[in-house]
């Protein structure tokens, strides 16, 4: 019974939150890694792209709600998501046409594009705050919990409760579908293959007749889809605030680099590595430990490696270790 309690506490406070957070990070890291692989620069505006996409989703959700349209037990935001992806895609293409295209034509060094991306980041940041404001916005509706911890305790008779939120399940399912679609697209379709060819060797790809502008356009559309979905999932699961999306940039980049920049598999692995490290290192293991050991060994100390204030430090610690010992990341992406 005690071992079961330990397992439930672990699942409730470490495994399930880590899984959801990991999926959200992985979706974000996929967008970063695609841009790095194909357009060859670090897109610092990615966190704010997520914020922009989520903002459009929220506005559309409000519109749908005022029309009385809902998605039954699921959040209305999922209905608004496809339209928001379209709008965000157009917005990104517009940015590309106005800004990045100019620099691409000049064949500038990647480091200049990084600075340009930072400028774009600040502008996006301002646009989002200007339109929807800097405050916390919750836009979740529908059924909030699949399993309530209180009911679980009564049902199982355990001392520990297990909570499962609808948004956690939606996050995992949506992330899985999005990743499967992405891999199918990259590996099986003609456009996907031409994108990979462009990423592997730009000159050879151009010689074999691939239209670079088309590759760029498709990339931005995919990035818009990934970023908006990642942003909406994070916002549904937690809450939307322009500033927290900007901060998400740090763990997302850590995930992409740890997995290997330019490698989609790496981005997914990196997302989960970062998420689970953050959660396990800052978790206080007292409860789980006390359930597992005989009574005589029980402890009153929290058994917490790092205070939760240092959550972000964990991703940076891992980042430094990876860059020192395996600069190309777990999945051998392009060297940073």
């Amino acid at each position, binding site marked *: 019974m005690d071992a079961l309690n330990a397992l439930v*506490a672990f699942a*409730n*406070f*470490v495994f399930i*939150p880590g899984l959801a*957070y990991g999926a959200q990070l992985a979706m974000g890291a996929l967008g970063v890694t695609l841009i790095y692989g194909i357009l060859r620069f670090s897109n610092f505006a990615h966190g704010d792209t997520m914020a922009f996409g989520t903002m459009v989703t929220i506005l559309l959700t409000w519109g749908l709600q005022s029309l009385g349209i809902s998605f039954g037990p699921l959040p209305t935001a999922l209905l608004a998501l496809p339209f928001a992806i379209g709008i965000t895609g157009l917005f990104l293409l517009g940015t590309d046409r106005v800004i990045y295209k100019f620099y691409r034509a000049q064949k500038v060094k990647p480091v200049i594009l990084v600075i340009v991306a930072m400028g774009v980041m600040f502008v996006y940041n301002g646009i989002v705050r200007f339109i929807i404001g800097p405050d*916390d916005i*919750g836009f979740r509706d529908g059924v909030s*919990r699949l399993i*309530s*911890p*209180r009911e*679980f*305790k009564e049902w199982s008779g355990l001392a*520990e*409760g*297990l*909570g499962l*939120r609808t948004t956690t399940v939606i996050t995992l399912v949506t992330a899985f579908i999005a990743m499967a679609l992405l891999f199918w697209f990259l590996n099986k379709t003609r456009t996907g293959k031409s994108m990979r060819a462009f990423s592997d060797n730009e000159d050879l790809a151009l010689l074999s007749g691939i239209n670079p502008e088309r590759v760029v356009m498709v990339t931005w559309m995919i990035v818009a889809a990934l970023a908006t979905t990642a942003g909406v999932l*994070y*916002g549904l*699961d*937690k*809450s*939307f*605030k322009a*500033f*927290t999306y900007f901060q998400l940039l740090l763990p997302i980049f850590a995930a992409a680099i740890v997995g290997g920049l330019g490698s989609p598999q790496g981005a997914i692995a990196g997302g989960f590595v970062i998420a689970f490290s*953050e*959660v396990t290192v*800052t*978790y*206080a*293991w*007292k*409860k*789980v430990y006390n359930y597992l050991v005989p009574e005589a060994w029980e402890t009153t100390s*929290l*058994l*917490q490696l790092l*205070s*939760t*204030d240092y*959550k972000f430090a964990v991703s940076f610690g891992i980042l430094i270790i990876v860059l020192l010992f395996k600069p190309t990341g777990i999945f051998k992406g392009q060297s940073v």
Partner: protein
Amino acid sequence: MKHLLMATAATALMATGAMADGHTGDVKIGIILGFTGPLESITPAMGAGAEMAIAEVNEAGTLLDGASVEGIRADSTCIDAAAATAAAERLVTSDGVHGIMGADCSGVTGAILQNVARPNGVVMVSPSATSPGLSTADDDGLFFRTAPSDARQGVVMTEVLIDRGITEVALTYTNNDYGKGLADAFQAAYEEAGGTVTINAAHEDGKADYSAEVAALASAGGEVLVVAGYTDQGGKGIIQASLDSGAFDTFVLPDGMVGQQLVDDIGADLNGSFGQFPGTDSEGAELFLGLAEAAGFDGTGAFSPESYDAAALLMLAMEAAGSNASADYAGHLMDVANAPGTEIFPGELAKAIELLKAGEEINYVGATAVELIGPGESAGNYREIEIQDGAIETVRFR
């Protein structure tokens, strides 16, 4: 010789200036509150409360042989100590105020006290700064507050918990002066009363996800979770995450966490949680609400009655001293606020002035049952509340 002449002339000029200042008969009171910044939603009602007391005294027209009182507003910003200091400096040097009603937040209040009030010798009465640190700050006898120190709230919260038979709690606070001060005061009082605080952990406001913080709190355990935070910030996030993961079912809510918005946002899961915030069942509170309604502002706003009391105390102390100079009336503030004497309620400021003129003593009760203790701060009356069926119900007064 020439220098001496000039010096003499200058001195004479300044002396007459000072004399003129002391005898113009007008009284100026600076109202420095965070009209912009995090408290901007409640400061309008606070300013209106203070201005209502001033209007009441002006209507009587008897203060200090017919002086008229002028309230001058300034912006403390609540968070920017430099901006607050500059605004207070302007009030004192340029507008020449005789007393300051303010400031609101503990951090800027401390800054104004040290940088402006003490160097210039001006009395300050804050209606809402609650940090325990201000109790021991050097103030040259110039600083008072009509709000209780959070040290007092820590004691009251301890009584609430012990009376309910709860002896083990987890504690989390918002990482600023207010949260830290309240958490430490509560922990000290609670442990002295025999309770156990399993964990005392900070949380940052403005984050999207508090599941990691809640996981640590849950692991430490405790019958209830004390959340010394803000309703629309991390405090709400902590409660939501605790309920989602089943870490805690019952929460203790200090003053920053008591708000109908929180009850509406969280819903039925919050039923059974309890807490306390400043409040009184004295008849002064009712009288104040009526006056506020007649004056056209919301008297139920947080710290609005305290603001009325702060401004009223300043003016009554001036009357008791027969002078609007801070050095003269600072010593009289405690006298007019406390027993013995005739009890004075809101709307009776004219009567209070008459009594003082007749040489009698008054005991200002005001809107918040003012009783100044120790270093000149309100003893504090608290309303113990419990969330029942989605409404904040009063259990009793402490």
